[in-house]
């Protein structure tokens, strides 16, 4: 994939720490291509994960029978007209929905503002608990649903807000309405926002080699290993994205310089307390990727970059 260095870096950070990610950019910028890369840079599935994923796909009737075992992390990309039952599962005898078919993999929601609000609401339980409970009169069933959420959206209804080569014809009111279609609670679960601008012609035609997924995956795996060690004593935490606020202080300490930087940024950009916690988590992941034990101002600066929506739309 050509160009898009900062988006690729954001993707690497997201995969390294298990953070959910939102891509913002004009049509054709490559948001979908980026999302499709995620299964290739996440660590490979263990046998247990593969068996669990295969069971779900088998029950749903989507297993490719020539292989027998789902070998790569699933990538599910439902269209934005999907119903809530299609997304989380349902039916008289409940069958797995897209969130369960994406268990141990990626759920990619393209054109996020186009999804119906009530449909996005049902993502709360899987995003919080990693399972989906479906109750019927006679029985109640729970399906596993732990996935990495990737989403994409245009910056405005016409798609070209901020684009240097094309004019955006949207009024500020239209943009505001468009962006607020995404519910606060859902946005709260997305740690990283990254702009994906249109790729310049030069980059498309350039001769520099794109980095192969395998080496990115290796860095992601190394960072994940550090996290497994760090959280060995905590229950049910395997990656930085899952840290509870009260554990932040313990595991994401920053220097006095860092504190100052963060405070300035938050004041200048008008970020909320929630954004503060998110920046710390992402900075912790970046430090893991860099292989250093303490978070430095450099990592904080990069983490602050990943709050695009806060800065551009709600500052």
């Amino acid at each position, binding site marked *: 994939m050509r160009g898009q260095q900062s988006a690729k870096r954001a993707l690497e950070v997201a995969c390294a720490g298990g953070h959910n990610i939102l891509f913002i950019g004009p049509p054709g910028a490559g948001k979908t291509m980026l999302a499709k890369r995620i299964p290739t840079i996440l660590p490979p599935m263990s046998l247990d994960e*593969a068996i669990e994923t295969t*069971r779900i796909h088998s029950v749903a009737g989507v297993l490719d*029978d020539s292989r*027998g*075992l789902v*070998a790569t992390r699933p990538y599910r990309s439902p269209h934005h007209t999907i119903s809530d039952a299609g997304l989380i599962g349902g039916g008289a005898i409940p069958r797995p929905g897209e969130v369960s078919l994406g268990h141990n993999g990626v759920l990619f929601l393209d054109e996020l503002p186009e999804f119906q609000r009530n449909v996005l609401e049902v993502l709360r339980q899987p995003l919080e608990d990693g399972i989906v409970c479906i109750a019927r009169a006679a*029985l109640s069933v729970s399906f596993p649903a732990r996935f990495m959420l990737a989403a994409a959206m245009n910056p405005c209804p016409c798609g070209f807000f901020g684009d240097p080569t094309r004019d955006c014809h949207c009024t500020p009111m239209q943009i505001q309405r468009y962006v607020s279609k995404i519910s606060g609670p859902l946005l709260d679960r997305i740690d990283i926002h990254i702009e994906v601008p249109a790729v310049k012609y030069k980059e498309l035609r350039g001769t520099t080699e794109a980095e192969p997924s395998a080496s990115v995956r290796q860095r992601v795996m190394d960072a994940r290993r550090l996290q497994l060690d760090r959280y060995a004593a905590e229950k049910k935490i395997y990656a930085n994205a899952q840290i509870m606020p009260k554990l932040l202080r313990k595991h994401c300490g920053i220097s006095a310089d860092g504190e100052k930087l963060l405070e300035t940024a938050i004041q200048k950009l008008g970020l909320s307390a929630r954004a503060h916690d998110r920046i710390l988590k992402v900075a912790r992941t970046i430090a893991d990727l860099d292989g250093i034990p303490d978070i430095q101002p450099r990592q904080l600066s990069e983490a602050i970059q990943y709050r695009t929506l806060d800065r551009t739309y709600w500052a």
Partner: protein
Amino acid sequence: MLFKTFSAAVYGIDAYLVEVEVDIGPGQPGNFNVVGLADIAVKESRERTKAALKNCGFDFPGHLAVTVNLAPADMRKEGSAFDLPVALGLLGCQGTFFGKVLDEYVFLGELSLDGSVRSVRGALSAALAARERGIKNVVVPEANAREAAVVEGIRVFSVKSLPKAADLINSPESFAPVSVDSRQMLS
């Protein structure tokens, strides 16, 4: 005349064992009832098993009444995976298996009208359920064999047709279980 086989039904992503009981006896000739909270696809297996038996050269006892019970009877059953065990039960009632008891097997498979066995959903979960209940042999459609064979500690047999399944029961030693290397499948 009563004949029992085991199958499996899916509940969420888990499966549980279902005992398929087939009873043939005096009653209204041509009656063929499936009970056990079976949904429409399950009930349609009557048509499929009847045609499959006839097309494979077996007899269908049309002059007697047939009752099939899918136990536990208070759990809703769905899908076409019970076709094969029902057909085998009908054969068993007619003495095809010489009274052999089949409690060491779990059977799954949809039947085509010509008797070939088609794939089902949830074979992996069914194999896990069989292992949990201590049943060592799982007989599945060819398309589901690799998936079920991932489960260690059981023997998975793949069958292409109803006559093949009947042969398997009568001479199990001439059939080799399917084996897969799961680590290799992952890479």
